[in-house]
């Protein structure tokens, strides 16, 4: 009975910590994005609210919350609101299988910094990731607006194409690790002293393409297309309801998919890797905190990379996007899969 209570408390704490981190960081990433965008375009960005605009997300939040809640006259109110829930919940649930660091001991209790270490973690990530389609399709349909419907159909087409690609892209690391559990994959990379990016550069590139496409980042943000579609499937949403969709798509999903990329290709919480030789840890002075810092560092670097792309590239047309998915990315992942299946037994017998 005591074990059950301890387990319940640990799980509850984990859930609260993960929710706090995800939603809090998600809100503050809006500021990061605006600052990075501003500096890429040689302007200062938000400077007025707080020191260098540090309180800007709070001001934005208050502004969005106090706005009038508009609703299209012939829309479907139930589905309109349900779409918000269906966007937020799966995106946040993905973090249940993201391992933040190695096992550690608190008050004599072993704690794994991962909410549930199910042995099919990766499958869950992609199942939940593609649940986003429902939210988008519903948001587009319930708004009863042509712009919203066109935007949501575009986005759904992109997500469906790239979901196939991303699933095949991650097969390489799965074959190398021999497991579907995210925690175990990182452990395997540490044991084999190899980040899988060194053997799977192709899969990593394809994964990054799919990440950009699924989260609706430039160059794949055609569902948004301000010039032709106003803002795609979010046209009819106002106030905080409007704020929620970019929060989920651009920040929470990018964060979760970057974390999964770090787990799959960049060795999770392990320090810098020299293939087959070992790890070099310039942050050794942090002691037991160093793995967590490494993990956060890698995820933020990937996130900044995505931001950099967003504010540098123009956008593709919808047919170019889906054609790239089916005619270029998918064959590439097949080639990568066959190569990995040949290489893996040679390397590890």
């Amino acid at each position, binding site marked *: 009975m005591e074990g059950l209570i301890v387990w319940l408390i640990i799980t509850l704490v984990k859930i609260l910590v993960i929710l706090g981190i995800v939603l809090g960081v998600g809100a503050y990433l809006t500021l990061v994005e605006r600052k990075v965008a501003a500096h890429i375009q040689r302007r200062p960005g938000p400077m007025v609210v707080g020191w260098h605009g540090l309180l800007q997300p709070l001001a934005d939040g208050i502004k969005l919350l106090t706005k009038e809640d508009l609703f299209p006259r*012939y829309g*479907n109110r139930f*589905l309109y609101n*349900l779409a918000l829930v269906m966007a937020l919940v799966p995106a946040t649930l993905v973090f249940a299988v993201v391992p933040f660091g190695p096992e550690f001991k608190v008050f004599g209790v072993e704690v794994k910094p991962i909410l549930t270490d*199910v*042995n*099919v973690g990766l*499958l*869950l990530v*992609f*199942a*939940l990731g*593609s*649940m986003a*389609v*429902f939210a988008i*399709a*519903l948001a*587009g*349909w319930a708004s*009863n607006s042509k712009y919203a*419907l066109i935007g*949501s*159909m575009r986005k*759904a087409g992109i997500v*469906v194409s790239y*979901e196939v690609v991303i699933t095949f892209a991650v097969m390489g690391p799965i074959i190398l690790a021999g*497991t*579907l559990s995210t925690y175990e994959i990182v452990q395997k990379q540490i044991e084999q002293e190899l980040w899988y990016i060194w053997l799977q550069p192709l899969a990593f590139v394809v994964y990054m393409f799919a990440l950009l496409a699924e989260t609706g980042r430039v160059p794949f943000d055609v569902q948004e297309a301000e010039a032709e579609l106003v803002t795609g499937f979010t046209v009819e949403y106002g106030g905080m309801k409007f704020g929620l969709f970019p929060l989920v798509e651009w920040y929470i999903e990018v964060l979760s998919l970057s974390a999964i990329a770090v787990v799959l290709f960049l060795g999770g919480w392990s320090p810098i890797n020299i293939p087959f030789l070992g790890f070099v840890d310039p942050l050794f002075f942090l002691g037991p905190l160093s793995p967590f810092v490494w993990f956060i560092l890698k995820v933020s670097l990937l996130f900044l990379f995505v931001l950099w792309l967003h504010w540098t590239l123009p956008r593709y047309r919808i047919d170019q996007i889906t054609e790239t998915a089916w005619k270029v990315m998918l064959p590439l992942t097949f080639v990568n899969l066959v190569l990995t299946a040949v290489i893996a037994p040679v390397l590890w017998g």
Partner: protein
Amino acid sequence: MIQWLVFLLFSTLAVVSGLGVVLLSNPIYVILALLSVLVSVAGIFFVAGAELVGALQLIIYAVAVTVFYVFVLTAVPWEKALKKDPFYRVEGLLSFPLVLLLYAEMLLVFLIGVSVSPKGQFREFVRQFGNTEVVGGILFSKYFLAFELVSLVLLIGMIGAVIIGRKEAQTYEGDTP
């Protein structure tokens, strides 16, 4: 205890949403009810410890299959989706014995399956090797032929879909003035 509660929750949800699939009139609500059925069945699999099957249920049925229904329905005009078609009463009455027959068959297969299934023999394997490995091992040893046949059928289906999809493009090419 907790397992029973969660099982009860998911099974009630599955039954209620199953009723919704049959009884609701707005097609979008029907799709959502179907999604709810599939997700709660996946939940039942997770409670039973069949994690791989649960995840596959989510990724194949709840996402891949249902998405295409949503695709079709978002292309349906708003007014058409709300229009209520009359129920097919005569057809429903005529097909009822067939439905009963199908249910009887499912029940029979289920009972036979329960009586001949190995009881607890695989539990040790599952604990030792993990869900995915055990399913893979059984699939590629005992049921290898069936597995290959199914993949052949899927391949044929895919080729058929491609051929049907291509035909239209060819007629357009012939029609150029």
